[in-house]
Each structure stands twice: as C-alpha cells, then as structure tokens.
C-alpha cells in the first residue's frame, strides 16, 4: 500500500502544486493524472480499476469555462439540456439529470430538487476547481442511490505554493450576437485570494458574479407591451453570485479542511403573455404581465478529515450541512410604468440536511489485499410547493413537506492478485426511512495485458429513488385523474463496462493512447405515468418501464511535441419500453452516434495555445405516443458544437488572456419530433440547445508573492 500513500502525499503536497505551476501553459501528461473518484485513496488514472475521465484545470482554462454547463457540452456521451424553467441538466445515455450525480470533493452537492441529482449545471461555479472527474455507469456502491448513468466529481483546489495568491479576473461574453455593457451579454467578475499562513495552514476565499443578461433572439425583453408572443427572452436572464472559502490544516499524515460555499441566483421569468387590460370606454389599455422571479440560495459546509494512522488505517471522513432553497416571487408587472403593482413571495422548493460519509481502508499491511468499509448517511428535508412540478400541467393537492433519512453502509475489497491483475468486489446496503432496503453491488477488474494494453471490466448497480412528482402528483377534477403513487419502488440501474486501453510511447516525444469501450446498461422498474383505468381515464405513476442501452465507443489521443489531438466516437442503441405492460409496447433499439474532437497546439516561444473543440451529436430517436394512441418514431435532428480559443500569457505568465468563440456553427435549437405529446400540448418542435455563435474575452492576473 506504499503506492497509495505515496499518491496521497503526492496529491496533498506536490501534485496540486505541480498543477498550479502548469496552470498557464499545460503540457499534457495524462498518464500521471491523479484521480480520486471511486478510489480507496487518490491514485493514478492508470492504476484505477475504474475508467475515470479527467477534465483538467488546463482544459477548463482553455475553454474559459465558468460553470459546468459551459464545459460539458464538449464531453462525449453527455448532452447538456437546457429546460424551459431556466435550468440546464445532464443527459447521459439518454437518461436525464435525475439519474446522474454531481459531487464536490466526493460528497453529493444539494440542489432544491435533490441531493447530488437534478443539479442545475449553470449553478456549479468552477473557479476553485482543480479537476473534474467523470465516471460512466452505475456507481451505487461508491456513491449510493441515483448514481445510475454516471457521476461527476468536482475536485477543488486545496493548497498553493505561494505565500499570497491574489487573482482577479474579468470575463466578457456575447450571448449569440448580443452584447453591450448595459442589458445584453454575459459579464463575469471574479476575485480569488489564497494564503499560506504557515507550512500547515492554508486558506483561500473567492467571490464570483455572473450576470447573464438573457438571450433575446428576436424577442423584445420585459418592457415590451404587445401581446404578440415577442415579450420576454428566449433564454431567461439570470444573475449569480458565488462565494467560497477553504481552510486547510495539514500535518505529515493528516489533513483537515473546511469548505464553505454561499451561492445566490435570481432567474427572471418574463411572461411571454401580455394582459392588455383594455378599457373600451377610453380606448386605452393598461398592459401588465405576470412575471416570476426565482430566487435561489445555497449554503454548503463540508468538514473533512483524512489521513493515515501508523501504517495501519487510512480514513477519510466528511461531515456536511447543506441547504438550497428556491423562492418564487410572483409579480404583476405594470409594463408601461416599469413597476410591480403586486408582489407575492413564497417558498417554491427546497432541500436541506446533514450528510456524512466515511471511508476506512488499509486495515491490513498487505500489498495484495485491502479492505475498505464506509458509511454514508444523510437526513434531508425536502419541500415543494404545489406549483413546483416538472410538468406545468401536473399538480399536487398540497405542498409537499418530506423528510428522507438514508443510512448506507458499504464495503469493498481490492485484491491485487498479481502486479497485472487486480479485482475489486463491493457491496452497499441502503437503509431508508421511506423505501424498502436497497442493495447495490459492484465488481471491477483491471488486467494489465502488457505491451501497453490494459483491460478493465466494471459491473455496477444503483437504485434510483422516485421523485416528488412521481410520489405526490395529484390532479383530479372532472376531466382528469393523474396521481402519484406512494407505493413506488426505487428503480434499479445496472451497468457493465469493458474498457481496453492501449498506450504507445515513441522516443518520449510521441504518446498515443487509445481506449475502446463496450457497455450495456439497463434500468428496470422505471417509473412512468401510465393509464391504470380507461373508463374513466385514470393515470398513475407506476414501476412499469424498462430501459436498456448498449454501445461502443473509441477514444484516442495523441501528444506529439506541442500538438495534442484527441477524438472520440460513440455508437449506442437505446431501447425504451413505455409501459411494458401494454400490448403494443415497442422495445426496438434506436441508434445514435456522438463524436468529439479536440485539438490544441502550443507555441512556447509566444506562450500561446490555440485550441479547437468539436462535438457532433447525431440524430436522436425516441418512440412517442400520439394522442390517438399510435406509437411513432420521433427524431431530434443532429447538431454540432464547435468552439475555438486562443490563450496567451504575458509578463512572466502573470497576465493571462483567453479569447475565443463558442458555438461557431450558431446552434440555437434543433427540430425535434421526439418529445412526447401531453394531454393538452402538441409535440414540441424545437429543443433549445444554445444561444448561437458567441465571443468571449477573459483577462486574469496573478499577483503571487
């Protein structure tokens, strides 16, 4: 286990410093990347039994990514889906953000709709991030419920080589072609301060504001008073402030840190409908609009202690209190006078609670076998007003106030059968105050085939808990009967991944790495709204659906001197049976492709990096049920995101300038017939994806002393 310890120390004391030094002009050396996700202790990507994809700080900087949504658009197998309510969620293997878990420093981050899942990517600021680790597949043993399609683990920066580090930056972006200093574009300001009080005690603090003025796209903003579907914005304006702080105390074999975050966001939902309030007697009008401002606040506290005792025990314990609440402010806006004539504020949705996770390993001083045991417990109170439903036609009869206690224990063992072959079985029991006890199991294996070939197999399961909509929906009137179901069982996700990696190094100048992956995933007992009685028509959420996907992907990267080229290709099939109990259920596989490519070229003499990022999302197909109950194949058209950036440093790397263009192919929305037709709504014909070709400039200065 010396290896693990070495890497632990490496990360804690030197690894990050190395990263920090490389911050400006990266020279990729991905074989030495240290990953944390799913590991007993931080260790190299190469050694990991999981296939961990890493987005480094340098990658983030080259894209000038301010939040997760900026970044993930370029990742293979991930699609960022902005929703009409202003949030952007992950869609991975065709499963939405409820099936995907987002963690910060190994612990799930809270949102107003869940713990770890249903995270709005635009609310995840990246300024203090050291690297982002992505693992595909069900990770129930390691990360508990809802880690079905995969996880993202955001690793924050926890040390510095400088006594003082003061880093102000500004970033100006156009939103599509829209930009001015006043009411268009995106304006980001940030200030980070880091300080080493002594060799043991490090602290940092940062504050970022992100003022997104919305995307007009021919709409006319909030002051427009005609009722002709032009009022408001295509993308809602939002204003965010993030403040974070870290205190870290490190000893030789132990470290304790406290991480704090405060986040606040206002999202402005300007109603497209203008109520004219015509008065015939005077032939005048008094245009008003019913607008909503969503006000979100998040508090995040995480106290973590990790280290090792006398060669006998490694521990990593996190204790966290988190809270995110979203209030809605209903306004009646007098357009002509530019003032709200009535304002009513109420709690829309919230989650809060305590969380703790502990990992204990290295019980045996043994190179061959190691055990890890751990616990993960949380006690989360949730609240959702009757209006807070995923579908604006659904309703609950009353506000939902709910408490969910989760008490999980897990264990895994890593067996290094030989230097080449290691095996890692694991299991978790999930006890809960609401649902039957669940189990998750995993088995991972890594085999070094020699000559640069490595083979990994990862099998995992994870349950997915029902959402509030699924549990508590209640819409019953003379024409409708749609009900949630308190007897729902958690869905069961299962995945099998096979990875074959090949690394080729020629004369130390050229590195060539290729990974071939084959995967299969299924989700059983999927919850869907189904007809439970046809006369009278009654619909209820039930565990009926089956979802399967399989596919293969190949990713490849090449480093030669100052040139790095990487690319990936995924071919996958999805079979989704809507209501498996129905006679006409169609479980044909529907196929899709995704492709990405990333090229960067460094010119050391100029201290400049040129980068280009391309992601092609092939057409997506889905069976949709029309109102006459026939099932047809719907299609979402293909689209491509293409970004290009230039990054250059001046004054001994102290001053950094990053400029570039995002979404060069000017994608705004794609045509789709793949979204379902509701009771009242016709199939939507456009899936909003982006806001068109936009430009940015980021200026950053390092005051290091």
């Amino acid at each position, binding site marked *: 286990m010396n290896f693990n310890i070495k890497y632990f120390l490496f990360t804690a004391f030197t690894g990050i410093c190395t990263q920090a030094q490389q911050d400006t002009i990266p020279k990729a050396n991905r074989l030495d990347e240290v990953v944390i996700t799913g590991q007993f202790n931080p260790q190299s990507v190469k050694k990991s039994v999981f296939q961990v994809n890493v987005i480094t700080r340098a990658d983030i900087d080259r894209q000038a990514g301010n939040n997760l949504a900026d970044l993930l658009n370029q990742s293979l197998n991930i699609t960022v889906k902005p929703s009409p309510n202003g949030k952007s969620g992950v869609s991975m293997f065709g499963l939405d953000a409820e099936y995907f878990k987002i963690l910060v420093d190994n612990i799930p981050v809270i949102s107003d709709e869940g713990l770890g899942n249903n995270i709005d990517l635009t609310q995840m600021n990246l300024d203090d991030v050291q690297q982002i680790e992505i693992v595909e597949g069900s990770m129930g043993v390691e990360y508990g419920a809802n880690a079905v399609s995969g996880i993202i683990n955001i690793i924050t920066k926890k040390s510095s080589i400088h006594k003082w580090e003061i880093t102000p930056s500004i970033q100006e972006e156009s939103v599509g072609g*829209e930009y001015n200093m006043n009411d268009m574009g995106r304006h980001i300001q940030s200030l980070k301060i880091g300080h080493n009080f002594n060799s043991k005690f490090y602290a940092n603090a940062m504050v970022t504001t992100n003022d997104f003025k919305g995307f007009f796209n021919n709409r006319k903003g909030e002051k427009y008073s005609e009722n002709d579907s032009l009022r408001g914005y295509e993308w809602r304006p939002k204003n965010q402030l993030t403040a974070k702080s870290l205190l870290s105390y490190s000893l030789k074999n132990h470290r304790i840190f406290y991480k704090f975050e405060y986040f606040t966001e206002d999202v402005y939902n300007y109603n497209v409908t203008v*109520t004219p309030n015509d008065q015939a007697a*005077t032939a*005048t009008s008094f245009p008003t609009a019913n607008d909503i401002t969503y006000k979100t606040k998040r508090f995040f506290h995480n106290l973590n202690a990790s280290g090792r005792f006398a060669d006998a025990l490694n521990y990593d314990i996190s204790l966290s209190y988190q809270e995110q609440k979203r209030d809605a402010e209903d306004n009646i806006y007098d357009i002509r006078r530019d003032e709200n004539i009535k304002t009513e504020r109420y709690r829309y949705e919230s989650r809060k609670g305590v969380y703790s996770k502990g990992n204990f390993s290295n019980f045996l001083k043994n190179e061959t076998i190691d055990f890890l045991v751990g616990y993960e417990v949380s006690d989360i109170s949730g609240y959702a007003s009757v209006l807070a439903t995923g579908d604006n036609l659904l309703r609950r009869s009353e506000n939902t106030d709910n408490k969910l206690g989760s008490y999980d224990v897990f264990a895994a063992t890593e067996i290094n059968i030989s230097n080449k072959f290691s095996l890692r079985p694991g299991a978790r029991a999930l006890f809960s105050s609401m649902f039957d006890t669940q189990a998750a199991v995993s088995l991972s294996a890594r085999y070094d085939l020699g000559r640069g070939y490595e083979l990994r197999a990862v099998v995992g399961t994870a349950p997915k808990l029902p959402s509030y909509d699924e549990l508590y929906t209640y819409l019953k*009137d*003379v024409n409708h009967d749609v009900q949630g179901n308190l007897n729902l069982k958690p869905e069961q996700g299962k995945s099998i991944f096979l990875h074959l990696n090949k690394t080729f190094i020629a004369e130390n100048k050229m590195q060539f790495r290729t990974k071939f992956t084959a995967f299969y995933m299924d989700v059983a007992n999927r919850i869907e709204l189904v007809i439970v009685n046809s006369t009278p*028509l009654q619909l209820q959420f039930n565990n009926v659906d089956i979802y399967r996907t399989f596919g293969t992907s190949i990713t490849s990267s090449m480093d030669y001197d100052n040139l790095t080229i990487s690319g990936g290709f995924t071919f996958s099939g999805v079979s989704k049976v809507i209501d498996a109990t129905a006679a006409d259920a169609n479980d044909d596989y529907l196929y899709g492709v995704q492709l990405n490519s990333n090229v960067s070229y460094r010119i050391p003499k100029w201290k400049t990096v040129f980068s280009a990022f391309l992601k092609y999302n092939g057409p997506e197909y889905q069976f949709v049920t029309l109102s006459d109950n026939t099932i047809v194949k719907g299609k979402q058209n293909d689209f491509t995101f293409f970004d290009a950036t230039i990054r250059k440093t001046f004054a001994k790397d102290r001053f950094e300038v990053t*400029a570039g263009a995002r979404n060069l192919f000017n994608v705004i929305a794609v045509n789709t017939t793949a979204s379902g037709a509701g009771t009242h709504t016709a199939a939507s014909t456009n899936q909003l994806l982006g806001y068109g070709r936009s430009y940015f400039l980021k200026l950053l200065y390092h005051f290091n002393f």
Partner: protein
Amino acid sequence: MKAKIYFLTLFLIALAFSGCESDKTDLSQPFVVGFANLSHDITRMHGQAEIKMKLSEPATSNGSVIIKVTPTNAQYTVDFETIPSSESGTFEVPFLAGQTEISFTYENKIEQPYVEDDKLKSVRFSIIQINYDSQVSIQGYTSTLVGFGISLGATLEPEIGGPNQGNQVFIDLSTELVTTSVRDKWDLGFYSDGLSRVVINGSLYMAAKQLDATNIDAVTAATVQQYQSQVAVGTFEASNVNYVDAPNGDIGKTAISEISANDNDNKVYLLNLGYSIGTDVPPVGSVAVAGSSRGWKKIRILKSGDNYVLQYADLNSTMHTEVTIPRSPDYNFTFFSFNTQNVVTIEPEKAKWDLNFTVFTNEIVGSGSYGYSDFVLNNLKAGVKVYRVNTSVKSFENFALTDINDANFTADQRIIGAEWRDVFTGTAYTDRYYILKDIDGNYYKIKMMAFVNQGGVRGYPKFQYKLVQ
C-alpha cells in the same frame, strides 16, 4: 503590451458587430376620459340617475371634463335637468387626483305613462374638452345617448364567480340586463315549447343513461352499478356523448329521449348529479369548478296532458316521489331542483336574454364529453344566433350593417363557446369578434376582452359590444 492592445482591439471590433440596442416600444399613452356606457335607457331612469365616466388611469392631478349637451325633441328643465347644470349647452365635471371614475347626475322629468311624442325625445352628451396637465385625447366612448331606444353598446363584466365559476350569468344586450343565478340551483329543465324534452344541468357535469326498466322502484344500486363508471363527463370515451345533452343546443338530441304520451315508452334513467361547485382556491390561472360528487338519482318522466310528471328517488329507494311540472310558455324551460324538491326560476324570460356565461359540458370529438369552464352560449332555443368574424377580414370598429351576412349564422349555441380564450396565455384572442342577431332582429358586434382579472385569476370575463349600424 502590444499584444494586449491587439486583443482588446479585436474584442472591441467583435463588440461593434454584435452590439445593438434592444427594441423599445413607445409606451406613452394619452390621458382619456370616456363614458362608461354608450347609451342609457330612460324607462329605467326614475328621478335622478348617475351617468358615469371612466378615466384611462388614476388621475395624478386635479382636472375637469367639458361636456356638451345636444337634446333632440327634449327641453332642459321640462324633460330633463343635470347636476351640474347644463342650461347653457355645456357643463364642466371636475375630477380629483387619484380618481378613476366620475359621474354627473341626470334628472329625468319625462313621466309615465309615456306618450308617443315622448319616445322621440333623447339627449346626447359629448365630451368636447379634457382639462388636465399632461397629454389628453378624446377617444373611446366619447358620447352617450339618453333615450327610449335600445342599447348602443356597453362593456360588461359578468360575475361568474371567480375560479370556482359558481354562477350562470344571462345577459340581454339590447337592455343591458344582467341576471345571475347559482349553478347548482337546478337539476332538470323541462322544455316549454312544442317538443317534450328534458335537459340535465350540464354546468354541473351531469350525465344520464336510459335503463331498460320502466318500474322505477325496481331499479337498485346493484342493477346500475355496472354503468356508473361510464355515466360521467370526461371519461375519454367517445360514446359517452350519448349521456349528455347535445352540446350544440339541439333540443331534439337530449340525453333523455322525447317523453312519450305512452307511459310504457318512458324508461327509467340513471342520473349522475355531477359535481358540486368547487370551493378550492386553485393556483393562479387555473380553475376549480368541480367540487365533490353530488351523487346519483333514478328518474322517470311521463306526460300528463301537456304537463310533465317527474318520478324520482335515490338509487336504493323502493319508493319514489312524483311531481307534476307545468310548461312555462314565456321561458325556455321550467326548472326543477332535487334540493328544494320544487320548481325554481333560473333563466329570465326567453326573449330577455341573448348570452349565457356558464360552466358547460361540451365534447371533444373522438374523446367524448369534456367539462369546460368560461363557456359562452347564445340563446339558440329562443332563436338568438351568432357568427364569428376574423379581424383580418374587417376590423371590429369598422364592421357595419352592410357587412352582415345572415347566411353565416348557424344553429349552434357554442359559436363563442370556449374558442374565445387561450387558457395557456390567459388572454382573450384579439384576432376575432362575434356578430349576434337577437330575436328582435338587432345586430350586435361582440368583442371578448378578458377572462382573468388583473392578477391573472380565472373567472373574471369582460366583453364589450356595440350595436351594428
């Protein structure tokens, strides 16, 4: 440093191409004072009456309106007087900061019984000047006529009762008469004219199914239980339109068949009493029209001479109540209530209403009966008909008598129906208006204006209408 300037320049150039001002509309609007109604009926003005004017917005400072008086065959002090006095032919009505409505007093001196000459008398009041310290305009209802003629038009806000929509409101356009009745005050309506037909209260989503039995006492809950899930509104079964009255208003196609003089032809019906008026406060923009189930009855209707005989009982009762119900020739129907066990008055006389605002059982073709709110019916049974005009053909203001096409009228009471409002945006469609022909042959044009109040709450309809001239 050079490079820095270079980048900044590059960025500024990019901005120059992308920067553009957002579109701003001219939001200024003049201050207006207009009459609340286009005409006033002298026969309803006994002694002193208020003539109201509306301000386009709350006045921010004091001001006044100058009104000109134009009598026709009428004489000041003899036939009428006003306060303030208008003996000189004009008078001034002041308003104060904060006011939104003002009025003056009209004193009618023409006394009953009216003689033929009286009916030629009228007085027109016209706004000729508005004194106010910002931009003003004379527009809208700039004059009003006090006389013996029919209504020239008005803006009305039928009180259907907010989001529970508990009322049925009947409106007579030519007299501006509004009659309001609570929806659940009646259950059955017995047709007065010619046919022997009985309607059920569609505003409560009632439904009726003919049974095979002719002996009402032999029908039990057990024998009808198999039908109960189907005999309802909104079951999404195409065939269930048979359990409700023809939504188009055809009295020959009611859920209950023609009542026969031969008793053996008159079957027992299973009657779903629908839902009580909702009491929930729904989210803004939604309605809660249906409350709890009102239960079931079994009924059988016979004829006795020209009268109806209603037999009714609860499902498990082995006894029934029998009541004789006479026809009411001046009305469309004689209404009966199970609650009061008696005949009740609901609609005004059939010649005295044109429009009915009500919750309604309509159908979605292919999906069967479906409960609607915000519905507007025309009094088809009395012969009132409506057709729709799109503003792209002719504007509301410009539509004149020569534009009338009688061939467009159809025998359907749902022409306005629910097709005047968009529940998703909460607004009345502005691309359409309606032409109504009343039973006296008057044509009115009707423009629906709103179905929510200023806070977006449902159940507050508003419309304006004008006599087509």
